[in-house]
């Protein structure tokens, strides 16, 4: 890492406004202009220049403590970082190593594991993917069946993961596996680390509804890894995974997707000549108001993090509201587009006018990260205390 004027010993010593200004300057100066506002999730070969630039300045891991090479940002500074990246339209890099695996290892990994893996994430040598969902374990994740059996000093893994983001780009996968088939379903699960180049691992891209291939299926056929690749305690993987849900849950409820779609609505209505239609305008105003109210709701949860408190189960409502608002906006866009709502390619190559693309992308938001129905179950039980 070669330090720059953006590399500070203690970012938290800056006031919020100064830090925000620093992030803005950083993005203006360092973000590759051609990667701004990408229409799809970038693959590693596309995102690599930006990843390495973040790495060079020590800006890859805002959420990790300083001692491990992160920025060591407080919760409120992390929110500013994320907000400014979103407002700028910064490209998302393959970030599972920073966002999910790093925090897991820092909290539960051995000193050897931390010393070995963390620097390689920061240098770009290891790109990680996440192995959670399976064909029969989506919303009901705890029923996962991919099995790891100890054979001497090695784990032998058999099974299948799915919906693995950027699986084909990754060097390593951190995965949940069943290590005790006899235990109650949440209690027989462990975390294992597996090189994607291991013999017996194969990856098959999933072409999604929007014809993109950011997800994949990953198959494990007698894959062998050393016993030491277990993270944390045996059979405690489920509670470890749950403990890591804090910051991600508010991330999924951030207004960014809805705001991104909403920002294109007026231009779209003007393009199709319906901007002055009073019915269109009332619907537009309703969605505008919904977006502003969602931002106010988001701020309430962000305030909890800023005060250093933990989020309650009601954060599920934030994700629920965001994903459904995003869909309502995208549905209105499709309606405005008329016949062009059925077009495969953007009009004049202008992605901002491509209602069907946003509409299809938005379908996933109420499914991933806990489907809306699962979120409603959680809120009913844990917030409303229904039987």
């Amino acid at each position, binding site marked *: 890492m070669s330090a720059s004027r953006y590399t500070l010993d203690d970012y938290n010593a800056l006031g919020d406004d100064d830090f925000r200004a620093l992030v803005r300057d950083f993005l203006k100066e360092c973000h590759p202009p051609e990667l701004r506002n990408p229409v799809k999730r970038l693959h590693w070969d596309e995102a690599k220049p930006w990843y390495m630039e973040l790495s060079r300045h020590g800006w890859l891991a805002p959420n990790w403590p300083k001692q491990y090479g992160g920025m060591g940002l407080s919760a409120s500074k992390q929110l500013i970082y994320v907000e400014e990246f979103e407002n700028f339209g910064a490209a998302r890099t393959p970030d599972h190593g920073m966002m999910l695996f790093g925090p897991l290892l820092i909290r539960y990994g051995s000193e050897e594991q931390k010393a070995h893996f963390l620097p390689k994430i920061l240098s770009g040598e290891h790109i990680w993917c996440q192995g959670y969902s399976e064909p029969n374990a989506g919303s009901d994740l705890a029923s996962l069946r991919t099995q790891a059996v100890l054979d001497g000093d090695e784990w032998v893994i058999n099974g299948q993961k799915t919906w693995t983001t950027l699986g084909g780009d990754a060097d390593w996968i951190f995965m949940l596996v069943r290590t005790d088939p006899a235990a109650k379903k949440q209690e027989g699960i462990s975390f294992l680390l597996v090189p994607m180049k291991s013999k017996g691992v194969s990856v098959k891209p999933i072409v999604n509804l929007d014809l993109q291939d950011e997800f994949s299926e990953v198959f494990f056929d007698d894959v062998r890894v050393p016993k030491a690749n277990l993270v944390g305690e045996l059979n405690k993987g489920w509670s470890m995974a749950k403990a890591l849900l804090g910051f991600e849950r508010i991330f999924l409820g951030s207004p960014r997707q809805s705001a991104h779609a909403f920002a294109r609505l007026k231009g779209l209505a003007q393009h199709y000549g319906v901007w002055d239609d009073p019915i269109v305008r009332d619907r537009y*105003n309703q969605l505008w108001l919904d977006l*502003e109210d969602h931002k106010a709701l988001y701020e309430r949860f962000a305030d909890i993090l800023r005060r250093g408190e933990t989020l309650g189960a009601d954060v599920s409502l934030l994700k629920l*509201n965001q994903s459904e608002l995003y869909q309502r906006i995208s549905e209105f866009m499709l309606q405005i587009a008329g016949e062009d709502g059925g077009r495969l390619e953007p009009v004049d190559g202008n992605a901002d006018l491509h209602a069907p693309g946003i509409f299809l992308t938005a379908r996933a938001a109420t499914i991933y990260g806990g489907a809306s129905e699962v979120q*409603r*179950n959680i809120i009913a039980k844990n917030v409303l205390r229904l039987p």
Partner: protein
Amino acid sequence: MALDEERLENVRMLRESAAAVADRSDLSRVRAQRFRQPGFDRAVWRQMGELGWLGLRLPEERGGAGLGMAELIALTEELGAALAPEPFISALMATDMLDGARLEAALTGEAVILAAWQEKPRQLDGEVETSFVDGRVSGRKLQVPMALGADAFAVTTPQGVAIVDAGDPGLSIEITPAQDGGHWGTLTFNGARGEPGRAPRESWLDEAVLATAATLLGIIDATLERTVDYLNVRQQFGVKIGTFQALQHRAVDLKQQALLTRASIEDAAAIMDEGQGPAAKAASSRAKARASDAALIVTRQAIQLHGGIGYTDEHDIGLFLRKAMVLAPSLGDSALHRRRFAQFQTQADAKEGLPA
């Protein structure tokens, strides 16, 4: 934008004293006042005066408490949850227009003085035509809540505010009974004698709008509490009906509306406490649009979730729906406020240099 310790303490104290005056768990007083005249309690009114509520927003040098919008919405939320029939917000609007002995009597709760400002259905902003010339008031004012209980009215006119006694021979009051058991008055002034009042603060109407939204929030939360309690008690097919996923998910949708309404209202209060202008007007309209729609959704779904018992007058849950039916369109319905929000938010964004 979080409140500091002192203001949090204000809010806590207001909520506590509100609970003592208007009990959200016991609606027998509310029932006793329904469909009677004047339909509210003078003893409670004087209590409100003693607690300083009637001058809550008024600056201290005018004898008020000088508190902010965050405090006002906490109070009206509690009054909403208890379905208090007293025309508190209308009186708050009136105190802004009073001076001298009238103001003192209004602040202590000795006199009930209500605002008469609206002249057309669905009116919020805009011109009024009632005239105040040579000490005489002529014209017509609509939608004055609980007008039969008033001692006087603060009447807006292009020539300034006029204070008119309720018993003035030049004033006739026509009563329209309302769904919540109260009523509103249509006031016809025919050369009624008026004393000059004072011009209200610029934010006066938006404060009343947001206070009404917060009243609806109280109704929403109380309705939801009662409904969730019912789902936990009522049994059908041998189990508590709260175990049915269809009902659970419906209850969650109502909770979502409740949380959004609270976020919207508390955000608006913070914006209004920061200053006046288009952003504050946009925020109050946004909150009222949300609260009006959410209150009708929540109270009507509450009837459905209660089933047959919810359709009886005997059960209290219906009182919340009937109150929402009165307050949702009052001081502007959701359609009016969506338009008003868009209008002022566009101005506010232009001021900040954001693209329209």
